[in-house]
């Protein structure tokens, strides 16, 4: 039998909650809740849409979009796959989502895979145009895309005209943050 543990594990954010500001730009690591991937079979897509709307208030987002849902937001991440960003801390969020969706989808906890940064301010495009290949000026709020920046993966969510949410793999988050700050230093 297992023993009686005297240890308590303490969660850590990938970058320890860093933030940095420039004139017209702010970069901050944020805790954005739990991230859960939701994948579903084509045959189940109609049922899933119905179930998803019932539980989260909207149908799953289409390509290149993210939407607010009850208890968080959701964005498209691939064919028959989306990501849910759920408010609050819940280490079993994937299991809860699977139950909510009544077994129509396969879920996986992804919160720890990604570091979460917000980048905002009036100079945000001047910096991001040197950071990632996507045209971020043109899309409306609610734009979501998966891309790369400085050879690192990134989900880009357009929160508003001057604010973006970036998700980047946890292991290379420090390199990502350094590169983003370096770019900002170059521009501002």
């Amino acid at each position, binding site marked *: 039998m297992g023993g009686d543990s005297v240890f308590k594990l303490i969660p850590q954010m990938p970058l320890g909650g860093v933030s940095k500001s420039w004139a017209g730009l702010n970069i901050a690591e944020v805790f954005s809740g739990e991230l859960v991937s939701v994948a579903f079979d084509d045959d189940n897509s109609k049922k899933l849409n119905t179930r998803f709307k019932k539980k989260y208030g909207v149908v799953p987002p289409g390509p290149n979009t993210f939407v607010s849902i009850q208890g968080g937001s959701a964005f498209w991440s691939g064919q028959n796959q989306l990501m849910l960003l759920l408010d609050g801390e819940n280490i079993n969020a994937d299991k809860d989502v699977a139950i909510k969706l009544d077994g129509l989808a396969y879920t996986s906890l992804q919160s720890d895979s990604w570091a979460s940064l917000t980048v905002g301010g009036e100079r945000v495009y001047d910096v991001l145009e040197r950071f990632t290949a996507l045209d971020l000026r043109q899309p409306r709020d609610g734009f979501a895309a998966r891309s790369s920046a400085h050879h690192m993966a990134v989900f880009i969510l357009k929160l508003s005209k001057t604010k973006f949410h970036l998700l980047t*793999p*946890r292991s290379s988050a420090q390199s990502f943050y350094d590169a983003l700050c370096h770019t900002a230093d170059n521009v501002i």
Partner: protein
Amino acid sequence: MNSTRLSSGGLIDRTQPINFTFDGKAYRGLEGDTLASALIANGVKLVGRSFKYHRPRGIMSAGSEEPNALVEIHKGESCEPNTRATMIKLFEGLDARSQNSWPNLKFDIMAPLDRMAPFLTAGFYYKTFMWPAAFWEKLYEPFIRRSAGLGSLAKTPDPDQYDNGFLHCDVLVIGAGAAGLMAAVTAGRSGAQVIIADEDFKMGGRLLNETHTIDNDHGIYWVSKSVAELGTMPNVRMMPRTTVFGALDHGTYGAVQTHSDAIAVSGPRQTNWRIFAKRTILAAGAVERPIAFANNDRPGIMLAGAVRAYANRFGALTGKKIALLANNDSALRTIEDLTAAGAETHLIDTRTGSHIVDVKGTNSVRAVVLNSGEKINVDCVAVSGGWNPNVHLTCHKRGRPVWSDELSCFLPNPDDLSADMKVAGAANGRFSTHGALQDGARLAIDAVSALGFDSKKQSLPQAEDSPPNIHAFWFVEGKKRAWVDFQNDVTTKDIKLAHQEGFISVEHLKRYTTLSMATDQGKLSNVVGMAVMADATGKTIAETGTTIFRPPYTPVSIGALAGPHQGKDFKPTRLTPSHQYAAENGATFVETGYWKRAQWIARPGEQGWRDSVDREVLMTRNSVGICDVTTLGKIDVQGTDAGKFLNFVYANTFSTLKVGKCRYGLMLREDGMAMDDGTTARLSENHYVMTTTTANAVSVFRHLEFCRQCLKPDMDVHLISVTEQWAQYAVAGPNARKLLQHIVDPEFDISNSAFPYMACGEITVCKGTRARLFRLSFSGELAYEISVPARYGDSLITALMDAGKKYDVIPYGTEALGVMRIEKGHAAGNELNGQTTAKHLGLGKMISKKKDCIGNVLSERESLNLEDGLELVGFKPVNKSEKLLNGAHFIGIDDDANAETDQGYMSSVCYSPMLKSYIGLGFIKSGSRRKGEIVQAIDLLRGSNVEVEIVSPHFFDPDGGRLRV
């Protein structure tokens, strides 16, 4: 030196002097000058020495086509060679130096080479230096290498900053002359997103250099008005000092923007942009070309357009007595402009049969001799052989320009242009200002209309519309050398010689003579060279053809290409969850792809890495050790068809794996060779977690996605990487279970009976934290792999180390991991090297014949199943004190080492602290049937020959008793 600056005129700011030096001598220029214009204004004519003959050279052009005025700027680590003086915007403190001369520019010790010209003709290096053979390496080559090359590179890293960036637009306008500005204004007014880029620091193109009127006013006013209007448009981005150097695939363009020629500035000096454009209007203008005549490379002989540019734009006269040699009407403006500026001018119009046959003067022109025998004393010769449209970007995607007899130039081939590109103005052979304006407006309307923008026809400004009236005149026959390619010292004689020697294709001619192969890429020389070739062959230029223009249009610095990716930012670094713990405890890290993994963790007093690694192995095998294995690829495989999918991608069967169990899997490539291996755990009926090797994590995931999407699209199976989600630690050693019992919550029984070898399950640790436990062993010890969400990774390693203190737990690195896996005989990356099969690895029976899988059929190829094929076995030295080397080849004990006697190779070696000798794994023919045989392990490169005995690969605990307790 006498100042040649005119008392008025020009686009320079006379209230803002700028101090600079050239070859150590102090000069003063003005704001708005280039280095070239400032040198001319200071009366400097000699600016460099030619590449091959070390001939004195002066400034020839006023743009990026400059072949002569190549200078070094800055010093030490920031030294920048081969910078065109015509493109450097003058700045305070600029330190420029001439190149290719010693001890100084005026007296160059290599200048006598010019007299050896008869021995240095085209391709001389193919015909000489043949004997004596020994001289090549010791004398000829070192001498040639020392003589060759222009400028000198800094030998230390460039300390300045460079950047990369990405821009998007509806319409990209390349060039900001009359056509470009008109196009940008027209497109901008429609609301389209417009980028206009020009290599000059001031927009306006040739309108800056000429005295043309537009709408009855000086053209410069129209330029200012247009630039001002563009500045008010939020949808227009103006990019001066930006050279679009390449037309790349999918409507993208490479462009380098120079922010500063100065060094140690805040921010990047240059940015390398990738521009994504829906439509492109190429309005890059044209460059004037010279005429080849005897000694036409003397300082003071310049392009006529450049002579006008220095007078009109920079207010600097290139001479007091100027001869104009021309074959077209555009050059006649030179007479008009220079006479107005106070110079004495002489027209030599080839259309009237007059031309220059020789030039007098060495370091500067003193006189020209005409074919009539007349000698005219001049200090400058302005030459115009017509204009070459800048078609380069139309050719980057294999477009071939077409020859126009009427204009005597190559024009873009409309049939070859990519659909998104149109060409306007002089770049398309419309040399008049009216033509340029008309083209710019029309093509902009076409572009924005096609994109759905509302664009109204613009009223065109009034401008001159005179035809060029050119009558081709390329070169003057004569005995003396006449230069075609100034930068590479290629003369008309060289081209004719090449023809005599049988070089018929222009591509061969180019390579043999080096015509147009210098940094100017033949902007001035290419067409003249073709004309000389055509004359020699008796063909037309159209029949002769042209070589291909490739990117970059002008040289791009390595710094700009590298952008910010230098030093620590060269590539991303991936850190494991225990990185901070390992770093604080003396770890040495090794790069594994982007990952940094602890290689060993030294303790005070240890003398070298072997001390640390031996200790880590012994302490793990004697008690317990912990290794961060987060870097192994982890892939969630879910779906009702997950088991079937795994059967397809793995050689062995997974659909029968029971929930709560793990199984080792071998993955094959389509060609039957081993691709990757790892364990896969079944967490629930429809949920598996696959592990891959660290090195192949990405490629395996990509492979699985290909299989899922393309080969098995009907399967209900879904993949997502969870490599980063879970921090995972191997806990190995006889006390592994005891240690884990302090961590795992009491409701989970991890005893051998309840959680046997190859068991897996979801558990909680440390009072309720979610975790997974796998009973796996790479070391051959009683071992587990425990994983928690990565947010707890750092905390868990601390907890494990604290909990393990009573067992003398140690963290161990990849070296100890490697030693233990070799002792145990497990294959790893060295064995899964892309050249081995399941059979080679001793895993042939794993390929299930009850089902199909990728690689199944081709793994049965005869050549992969030979009776005497390679097999993985162990090796130990006969003399236990001898060291084995990885990569050594196995040779029969009585055989000489050669390709015929080669029987296999050593793939992995280590020193085993358990066996107290070196041991190795390797592949040898029929290995499993040769145990006990002695062979030689020979490494000819490192001079090693060790007698080794073929043994079982399982050196340690061959029965596996330790891992099942």
